[in-house]
């Protein structure tokens, strides 16, 4: 076989494609000859960490991915979960970390664009988005610039596309100084019988290119995302793509219109490694070969080589296999939306991936092996060293009121309003709970009372100290946040952000975190249906905090029974449900220690999954019975911060009295898991609440009455009362004054 090749293949060239010598040998063994330059590019695109999951696959297989409601688990563009009445929610979370650090606006914007495309590729109209953002220390020289650019980029794309952002996270830690994290989540709605997949079927059918034209942007992006950063990072800017939300919005409408015509057999969006990845995936899944004629590909730059076209990551593009008799109808839809429509190839029966350019063959590779034979590693890993638990006697003391004000007015616990007001949170008219609470809630169009809840969670401090417990905790917290709105947690997506997997201690973090995630998902019946792995988040050899972000989705049969976190009325009893009887005893790895005493010691709090499930099920039942007026789970900053957030959100104070005999620091700032605060519209001396306590006691759930809402101040035990207005000012002030500073 003689293929056209214009560039000599040298060891340096192989290395610059991120392929190790043994990986290159594997290519030689597989094809029995030296690859062409284009083929080398294709292998590098398919076999890099980002696309092949070669370091993580072995461990991802251990995660629970099935459940009675799961229609599609990992392996497609997004996961699909049944929500009844013939409807499904389609969702996924994906990282765009490396590009966002290099070029924050476009990196974040195209991250949002990519995840939206994953969702509507499956036939679902996007209805909700979230973003989990992690930046370096606030005082690091780059942080403000990155926050400003990323937030503007997320908003710039999502607002124009027209999807409400309903939740997310923003966190600062010096460990992200050289590698920020931008994890974008999107969810869409589809009918269960109208889900579209990437598996091609039928020989000799047209492979059609749709959407925007191909340029040189993003060439090699996926390979870049599979390497550590060094000091040459600025040189990598050309590998970042440029987003065009206007085209994406038209692509959405055109795709949904086209799908309704019945013309689509298979569809795959062009994300990482663009044309290469999408074509190979459609063919390989359908046991078919694919032939592409690059001279037919719509381009927006002159003299593009086959290599550049195959590796371009230009955005807003799709590849489809269509019913040939419907081609004219399909073309008309795309012409209406003024998008490119070009037949660029066909399906074949020879299981080869063939690429023609200027009339000559520039690639001819076995299609199945390109995907399936990608290297897979069982990388060496070491058991993480878990720090000793914090000694009970080692509790640094501080005035409780002062500590609370410092935390609520600090970078970690303060309001994210500055961020989420730059996102359109109410477009589509279905946002029932907007950012600022435990989870975002939307109502489901076309259903009477059905709603969906969304949350994104992980505590990287815990994951660093104890990856196994941290993995469990991330899942449990997502499950808890959904429960706190009254939703039944359905399923989750995981976005696993770690450092260099070639270092055994980093691989150890990954292995144990995945083990923890798996265990929590199994016990909580909360399967992982989609996800993404981002490794090599290191700069000059220093890794990020292990950050396995969990995006959770829950179902509300009646959204009008959902509750928020704000106190709604005075004189309502506050119950602290769950946790150990001595409540608030775990200070290791807490925000109190880190932010007020600059200490990162102690073990992470452990999650008792059985108790978690029992407590959550009890709280959800209470909410659905209509007696709960507000509910908030306890997380960073413990009871004190949770109470402050409820008071600030509701504009009503509270007095918490039942704390005698405990160290107030542990009581108010301990971060023990599996706990909720609820307020009730019940008489605290009445029969109904007595029945509630009886039921809790029978279940072994601790649910003491700790205080009462009312007045315009928050009083924590014996501490000085703090006016709600003072709390609110501190809470709202940090972000805007930081960004203006």
């Amino acid at each position, binding site marked *: 076989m003689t293929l056209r090749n214009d560039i000599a293949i040298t060891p340096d060239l192989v290395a610059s494609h991120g392929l190790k010598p043994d990986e290159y040998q594997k290519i030689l063994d597989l094809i029995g000859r030296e690859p062409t330059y284009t083929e080398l590019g294709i292998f590098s695109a398919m076999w890099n960490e980002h696309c092949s999951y070669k370091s993580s696959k072995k461990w991802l297989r251990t995660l629970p991915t099935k459940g009675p409601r799961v229609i599609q688990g990992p392996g497609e563009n997004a996961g699909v979960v049944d929500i009844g009445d013939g409807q499904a929610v389609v969702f996924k979370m994906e990282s765009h970390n490396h590009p966002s650090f290099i070029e924050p606006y476009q990196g974040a914007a195209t991250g949002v664009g990519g995840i939206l495309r994953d969702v509507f590729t499956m036939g679902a109209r996007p209805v909700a988005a979230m973003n989990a953002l992690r930046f370096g220390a606030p005082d690091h020289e780059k942080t403000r610039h990155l926050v400003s650019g990323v937030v503007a980029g997320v908003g710039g794309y999502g*607002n124009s596309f*027209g999807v409400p952002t309903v939740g997310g996270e923003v966190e600062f830690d010096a460990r992200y100084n050289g590698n920020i994290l931008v994890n974008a989540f999107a969810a869409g709605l589809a009918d269960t019988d109208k889900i579209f997949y990437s598996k091609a079927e039928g020989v000799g059918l047209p492979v059609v290119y749709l959407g925007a034209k191909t340029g040189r942007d993003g060439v090699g992006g996926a390979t870049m995302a599979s390497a550590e950063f060094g000091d040459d990072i600025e040189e990598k800017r050309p590998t970042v793509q440029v987003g065009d939300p*206007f085209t994406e919005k*038209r692509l959405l409408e055109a795709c949904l219109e086209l799908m309704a015509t019945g013309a689509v057999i298979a569809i795959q969006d062009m994300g990482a490694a663009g044309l290469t990845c999408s074509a190979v995936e459609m063919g390989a899944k359908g046991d078919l070969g694919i032939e592409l004629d690059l001279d037919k590909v719509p381009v927006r730059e002159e003299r593009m080589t086959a290599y550049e076209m195959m590796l371009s990551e230009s955005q807003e593009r799709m590849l489809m296999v269509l019913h040939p008799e419907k081609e004219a109808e399909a073309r008309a839809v795309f012409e209406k939306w003024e998008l490119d429509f070009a037949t660029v190839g066909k399906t074949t029966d020879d299981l080869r991936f063939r690429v023609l350019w200027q009339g000559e063959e520039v690639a001819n590779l076995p299609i199945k092996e390109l995907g399936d034979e990608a290297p897979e590693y069982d990388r060496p890993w070491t058991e993480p060293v878990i720090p000793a638990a914090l000694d009970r006697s080692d509790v640094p003391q501080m005035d409780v009121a002062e500590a609370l004000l410092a935390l609520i007015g600090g970078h970690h616990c303060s309001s994210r309003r500055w961020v989420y007001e730059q996102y359109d949170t109410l477009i589509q008219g279905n946002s029932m709970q907007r950012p600022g609470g435990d989870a975002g809630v939307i109502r489901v169009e076309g259903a009477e009372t059905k709603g969906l809840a969304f949350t994104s969670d992980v505590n990287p401090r815990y994951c660093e100290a104890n990856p196994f417990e941290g993995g469990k905790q991330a899942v449990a917290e997502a499950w808890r946040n959904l429960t706190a709105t009254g939703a039944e947690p359905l399923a989750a997506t995981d976005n696993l952000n770690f450092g260099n997997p070639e270092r055994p201690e980093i691989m150890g973090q990954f292995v144990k975190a995945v083990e923890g995630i798996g265990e929590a998902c199994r016990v909580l019946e909360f399967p992982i249906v989609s996800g993404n792995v981002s490794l090599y988040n290191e700069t000059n050899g220093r890794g990020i905090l292990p950050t396995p972000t969990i995006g959770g989705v829950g179902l509300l049969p009646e959204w009008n029974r959902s509750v928020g976190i704000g106190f709604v009325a005075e004189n309502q009893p506050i119950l602290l449900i769950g946790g150990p009887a001595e409540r608030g005893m775990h200070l290791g790895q807490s925000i109190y220690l880190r932010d007020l005493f600059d200490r990162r010691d102690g073990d992470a709090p452990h999650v008792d999954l059985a108790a978690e499930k029992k407590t959550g099920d009890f709280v959800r039942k209470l909410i659905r019975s209509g007696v709960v007026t507000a509910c908030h789970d306890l997380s960073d900053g413990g009871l004190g911060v949770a109470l402050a957030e409820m008071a600030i959100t509701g504009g009503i104070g509270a007095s918490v009295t039942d704390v005698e005999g405990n160290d107030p620091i542990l009581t108010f700032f301990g971060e023990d898991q599996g706990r909720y605060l609820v307020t009730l519209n019940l008489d605290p001396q009445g029969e109904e609440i007595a029945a509630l306590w009886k039921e809790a006691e029978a279940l072994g759930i601790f649910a003491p009455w700790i205080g009462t809402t009312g007045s315009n101040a928050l009083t924590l035990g014996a501490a000085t009362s703090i006016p709600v207005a003072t709390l609110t000012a501190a809470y709202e002030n940090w972000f805007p004054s930081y960004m203006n500073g």
Partner: protein
Amino acid sequence: MKAAVIVFPGLNRDRDMIAALTKIGGSKPAIVWHQDADIPDADLIVIPGGFSYGDYLRCGAIAARSPIMDKLRERAAQGVKVLGVCNGFQILIEAGLLPGALMRNMSLKFVCREVKLEVVNADTDFTRGYAKGQIIRCPVAHHDGNYFADAETLKRIEGEGRVAFRYAEGTNPNGSINDIAGIFNENKNVLGLMPHPENLIEAAHGGEDGRALFAAALQQVA
């Protein structure tokens, strides 16, 4: 009572607007694609919000030069009610149907939050459901809502009762001159406003303050 909604590529609150008109008017409005030859017979023609043509040029500038806008101009001249919300307001201004300009928000950032609006003129076909001086809640979501007009224009629209809504109680989100949130044309049959009353029309939205605007606009029988 018939309503029509004009859709340009890149608009994204068309579905919100269609839902509001349908829920309040009782029937679905006609959907007019920007390439359609004409606008069907209607008593109220609406341009909803979004990012027509990506707003890559000045917001609304490209849509304003679309052939369908000539048809809209004819209808407006005949006295048909025309409502432009957010990008729709920007398009009406760019098309010369309303005076002034909408500049980038003073913060230079997109802003999505709830504001308070004062109903300045309640004596129009759009606003008769409110009382003059009434303060209503309404969400905003825009990047370019900073209304500006020169002194002479401003004096004229203020003097002729052509300010429909003003941001109230210190909630001006964008730096608009005189806190202007929405204005009428001379005949008061064309209204443009930045806020989104269509996103506050039912209990599920947390309020119904936007409802009276549509109820009034949809009330008159042709």
